């Protein structure tokens, strides 16, 4: 969160505040940490990546004269012998939102420099993410088992498989990278690197709890993308 108490630049709401911030010297985003600003801009760029994927998907699906498979049937899962539509996807969404919640609270405790709570919550988030990736692997293997391939599928338009594997694969890669970093950061929190300002191994930068918020932004973004994929790919 931006700091509202910067000398000469107290938070002003609305466009007037924006104009004042923009016209000021030194920084445009008042009180925003460099790393956080970087993550925001990166996420903006990444939004364009996912947008381009989803737009391609829209155009591919819209312009094919062949029948598009009904996702609600393709992604159904047998529970006690009854096929439940989108069961796995619903659970995956549940898991990802859970992990997003724990992350949000981890960020809060990070700001309060509450090492224990922050660490446990980051760890919980990591485990949630890992569960998500595992379930996605299960879903992929199930579909592959059913004969869905990137180049063909038994249900209809071949683009279905192509877009499915590409988009969920790209999203899954993002989740996996996030999980790796979550584990690393959980370790760093527990080891107290953010309390002592210990320098990172690679970047040799001083540790600070703001890194948890930066990681949190990334993690929420992954969740955000899932919201769109869920709506456009599974429900549409």
């Amino acid at each position, binding site marked *: *969160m*931006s*700091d509202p*108490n910067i000398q000469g630049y107290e*938070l002003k*709401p609305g*466009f007037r*505040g*924006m104009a004042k*911030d*923009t016209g000021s010297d030194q920084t*445009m*985003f*008042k*009180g*925003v*940490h*460099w*790393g956080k*600003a970087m993550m*925001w801009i990166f996420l903006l760029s990444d*939004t*364009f990546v996912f*947008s381009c994927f989803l*737009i391609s998907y*829209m*155009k591919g699906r*819209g*312009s*094919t*004269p062949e029948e598009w498979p009904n996702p*609600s049937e393709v992604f159904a899962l047998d529970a006690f012998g009854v096929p439940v*539509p989108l069961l796995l996807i*619903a659970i995956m*969404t*549940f898991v990802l*939102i859970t992990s*997003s*919640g724990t*992350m*949000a*609270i981890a960020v*809060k405790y990070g*700001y*309060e420099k509450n090492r224990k709570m922050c660490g446990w919550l980051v760890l919980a988030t990591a485990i949630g993410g890992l569960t998500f990736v595992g379930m996605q692997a299960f879903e992929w293997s199930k579909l592959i088992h059913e004969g869905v391939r990137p180049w063909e599928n038994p249900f209809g338009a071949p683009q279905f498989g192509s877009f499915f594997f590409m988009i969920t694969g790209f999203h899954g890669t993002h989740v996996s990278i996030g999980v790796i970093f979550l584990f690393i950061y959980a370790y760093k929190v527990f080891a107290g690197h953010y309390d002592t300002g210990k320098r990172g191994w690679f970047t040799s*930068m*001083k540790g*600070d709890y*703001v890194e948890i918020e930066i990681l*949190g932004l990334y993690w*929420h*973004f992954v*969740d*955000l993308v899932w*919201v*769109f994929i*869920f*709506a456009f790919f*599974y*429900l549409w």
Partner: protein
Amino acid sequence: MTETNNNKEQASTHKIGIYLWIWGLLFVLSFFSYMVDWYQFQGILRWSLILFFMFLKAGLIMAFFMHLFWERYALVNVLLWPMTAIACFIFLMVAEFEYLLFSRLFYFVVGG
């Protein structure tokens, strides 16, 4: 990383309640959007419900979990304005795929 804000003693943490609230809301909304599929709504109702829940969820995540609601307007605007380019892209690609589908059906299937 490189620098630490000198006034880091947080003026800006929030009560845990707000996060729990949003968290709960997200679950409820996800449940609703799942129900859209469960009850097999069709047509315009389905699309509008899906989009409505999607944007609501996305908005909540961005506004509260990603703290955009509490950020200054400069950051918020920098992040949201580029989306007009995406909106334009989407809009034009809709026109494009409709034209392409029409051409394909007209020249390869229907004829005349």
